[in-house]
């Protein structure tokens, strides 16, 4: 069984990220970068399937620059077997379809049983790359998995739906994008980190990329929030005042 896991490198969104003064982009100079957290769940899920099956190969695939190698080593240290990095100088200027097309070329060559990835990249939040790949590969596609079970050569995937928590059987070949899961992604062990140094990381050059269809024009910080009111009255007047304000001032009741 071969599973490709898409791995994007993203700024850690748990840290305060600011927009550059001229609106030309984000100021990421002192922000730590991590593997996209949803991709980490995808990799953990792939490792679980491989362990359950008792055999298999997990291949990391990314479109990125030299810095991506650090992220990929992290994935290899978690337990992936090998990696392919499609090298582009500036991954930030590519639109979702450009990225998806680059990934597609390698996916076609690898002919995996499944592709696992995140439901979105937490930096640019396009949430499109997965569906585009699934469509072009004609794979069954499930968006937003929260748990996975593998048995009798079948994938059972859990997902939150409008009606409730549902379990689906998804046939191979398939693409699964992962939401925040009911399990945690493992930390690389020291042995894993050592082993990762020797695992193959293939770097691929790109010849030409078709033109952008989406262009980022300007970045903005969130609108400033006007200072709020602390209702500093004794109980139960504070509650009465809150209800009055919600009704008369904010007009939301």
């Amino acid at each position, binding site marked *: 069984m071969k599973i490709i896991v898409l791995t994007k490198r993203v700024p850690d*969104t*748990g840290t*305060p*990220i*600011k*927009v550059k003064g001229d609106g030309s982009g984000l100021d990421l100079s002192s922000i730590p970068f991590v593997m996209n*957290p949803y991709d980490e769940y995808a990799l953990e899920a792939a490792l679980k399937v491989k362990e359950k099956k008792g055999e298999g190969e997990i291949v990391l695939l990314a479109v990125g620059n030299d810095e991506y190698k650090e992220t990929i080593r992290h994935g290899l240290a978690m337990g992936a077997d090998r990696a392919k990095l499609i090298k582009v100088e500036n991954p930030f200027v590519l*639109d*979702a*379809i450009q990225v998806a097309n680059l990934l597609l070329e390698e996916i076609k060559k690898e002919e995996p049983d499944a592709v696992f990835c995140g439901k979105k990249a937490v930096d*640019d*939040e*396009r*949430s*499109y790359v*997965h*569906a*585009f790949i*699934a*469509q*072009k590969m004609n794979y*069954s*596609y*499930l*968006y*937003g998995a929260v748990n996975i079970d593998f048995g009798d050569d079948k994938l*059972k995937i859990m997902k*939150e*739906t*409008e*009606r*409730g*928590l*549902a*379990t*689906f*059987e998804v*046939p191979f070949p398939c693409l699964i994008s992962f939401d*925040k899961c009911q399990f945690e992604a493992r930390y690389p062990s020291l042995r894993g980190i050592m082993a990762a140094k020797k695992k193959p990381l293939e770097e691929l050059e790109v010849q030409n990329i078709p033109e952008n*269809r*989406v*262009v*980022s*024009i*300007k*970045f903005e910080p*969130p609108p400033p929030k*006007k200072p*709020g*009111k*602390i*209702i*500093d009255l004794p*109980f*139960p007047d*504070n*509650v009465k005042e809150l*209800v009055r304000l*919600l009704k008369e001032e904010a007009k*939301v009741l």
Partner: protein
Amino acid sequence: MIAIYMEHKNGKLKKHSLELLTFAKNAFEGEITAFSVGKEVNYQESFNYGADHFVLLFTENENIHEEGIANAIKSFVKRKEFKIFIFPASNTGRDIAARVSAFLDLPLLQDIVEFKKENDNLLFKRPIVAGKAYVWEKINTERFAISVRPNVFPPEENKKEGKFEKIDVSIEEKIKLIDIKEKEEGEIDVAEAEIIVSGGRGVGGPDGFKPLKELAKVLGAAVGASRAAVDAGWIDHSHQVGQTGKTVSPKLYIACGISGALQHLAGMRTSKVIVAINKDPNAQIFEIADYGIVSDLFEIVPALTEEIKKLKGDT
């Protein structure tokens, strides 16, 4: 022509889908065709909000996987006259938007919150990096797709004499539903709610959500939660708001016993009015709250429920 995908629940068009009609009228020119997949839909409502056509992609199949829905849509959306495709940026709406856009090979922008015209260009704004920034983007092609964030563009009535069309479709899906744990009857989804009462570690345990649920009931609100409450197992993940939960923009968000971590704010900072109830005057949540009460939630929340009952009784 503009094609708008509308979600419905038991045949009733959802409010976030009606919002798209108003959005489309303000942003673009051209006739609007609204469409849904299902057995019966109260399509007249779409004509009240500005649809010129409504197409029901008819199926008896009460299927719930998006693969089937997207497949049912595919042959219809191939119609050449459609230039712009709009979807609600709900959880399923985003999923379907991505599938349909990929099928049509169209650029897609998800979760639009604003638009503007600038030198003949249409620019769209959407949140990135967990709500810490926004980006304005331009699409270079004439045909494209977008999904629009719920609760951002209020629907305005715009009565039309719309035309109704029904097309039979078959649902094809390789993915099979094998089990479902149905939600409680009447439970409102946080992603769509207009009011959310949310609880964090401060509620202290599963029973601590009881007063919040009562408040939610009198308000017609959904119950939300912080990750701390979800991870503790007090409430399930479908209620989680934040970076790894749902992104919401209700008109009123009441945060009870939630400290206001960045990852939580990421999911709710665009709420129109935020109320914080927290014992700690230094809790970060007060920095973004419009109204705050520094006190014990177990005192405040039940009293608030009673006050609101009185208010609703009066009017």
